[in-house]
């Protein structure tokens, strides 16, 4: 099994607009999905992110960052294990919120450092 990071990309302005109840429902939905990942032994961990953040470049620190108005910014992450990238992608596709087209999951394999040869 390999590890994969699922980056949760959502429309943050939309997230701010929805009611508390809708937000609760969304969390519940993700919860049930994560639970099913747990049952199949694919879930390793994960956390949501708050909307606040800072954006740092060499010359300046933008306190708000450009992501506040972003249509598609990272709102959380999920760490899973899967057989291969195809399976990891297939797992991500089963997320009900992704199916409704209200969320995008970016699936990235985690590079296992111990398998790498370090020069020098």
């Amino acid at each position, binding site marked *: 099994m390999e590890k994969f990071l699922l980056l949760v990309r959502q429309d943050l302005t939309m997230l701010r607009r929805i009611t508390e109840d809708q937000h609760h429902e969304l969390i519940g939905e993700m919860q*049930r999905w994560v639970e099913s990942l747990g049952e*199949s*032994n694919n*879930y390793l*961990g994960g*956390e949501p992110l708050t909307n606040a953040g800072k954006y740092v470049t060499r010359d300046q620190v933008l306190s708000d960052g450009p992501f506040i108005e972003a249509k598609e910014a990272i709102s959380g992450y999920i760490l899973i294990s899967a057989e*291969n990238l195809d399976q990891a992608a*297939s797992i991500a596709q089963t997320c*009900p919120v992704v199916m409704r087209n209200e969320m995008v999951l970016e699936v990235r394999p985690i590079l296992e450092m111990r398998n790498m040869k370090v020069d020098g």
Partner: protein
Amino acid sequence: MDKIQQEVDHLYKNCFGKMVASLLRFSKEIDFETAEDIVQDTFSAALASWKSDSIPTNPSGWIYAVCKNKALNKIKAGKKLAPLAFHERPFQPDYDFTETPFDDQQLAMLFACAHPDLAPKVQVVITLKYVMNFKVEAIAKILAMSIDGVDKILVRARQKIRDERILLVVPNLSKVKDRISIVNKIIYLIFNEGHKSSWGKEILREELCEEALLMCKALFDCKIGNKETAALYALMLFNAARLKARFDLSGALLDLEQQDRKLWNQDLIDLGCYYMQESRSNVISSYHYESSIAYLHCAAKDFSSTDWETITKLYYKLIQLNPNPFVELNYAIALYYAGRVEPAMHLLNYLQQQSFLSNYYLLNATLGKIHLSLGNFKEAKEFLLKTLQQTSFQVEKDFIQKMLDTIDD
């Protein structure tokens, strides 16, 4: 429901997957979607024709014959007909489908569903559809998904299976070996679904457990089952043995402590023990640990004599094998009952800090129950109230409410 509809539904349930598999074998000209369309079409035709006429003496024969004709029409050019006798089996007079709940074609389908690129959830959905012949509506209900969601999963899965069509023709032995652990996982998840959802007291869900057991048995009948399968079979048998005792006469949920152990099915437990012996192996899978835990519960003559110390060790091993917060929750519970309250609480609090887990109803229910038994009523109430909001099953709500009622304000 009228008789004709019933007959058609019955045939659909028993034959859909087999017919799709037969068609795919029948001719290389037929792809997955076409095969499904033809079978679907056949059933609509049956319903219409039988309603205006009457049910033929051999309904399954009728269905297969019409299906075959429709397939032949579809491939009129008729170039590459496989020499396979499509009609052989279905045309046996008075063929009783229940006598052979599982056949080669279903087995081939099962292995096709175990595609390593598909998500476990997807594998479960297509197995329910093509091996167990559940309708999309039924699958959506069982897995708490929307019909649309199930449809989307099926569409994508079909594309994958189409690419791997060769597996539907001959389950070649080396591929079978590669996929047996995925098949085991599918069966495990189907059983789980039937087991945990028996909250709703839906017959369909108990049926899921039975189907999972049948699939496991079929793997042994075909000599495909490995040591892992044996451990899985034992695990499911131990859990199935306790199914009936999970509710009291009024249908209220009972926890392990309150269950009447006399209601546990000793035959199933004995069979489980047999397969646990069979599962002995140098390679230990998670099913081995889980079946051992289930065995220890079955072997304890009452709750207080449960060997929690060994169960704790087994859960620890399980976590080493599959790091997973949901297993850690069970580990914490075992630690608590083994008398190690402090490490148990430590682990539970740690899990509570994990964002996804903090909203998990079973974690909050556990914390509530433990605080209650420790006499921390304020905390108990807090967690139990939280749980109450997080479960949608009435029997669970009643169960939690009962605990809440014991707390005086």
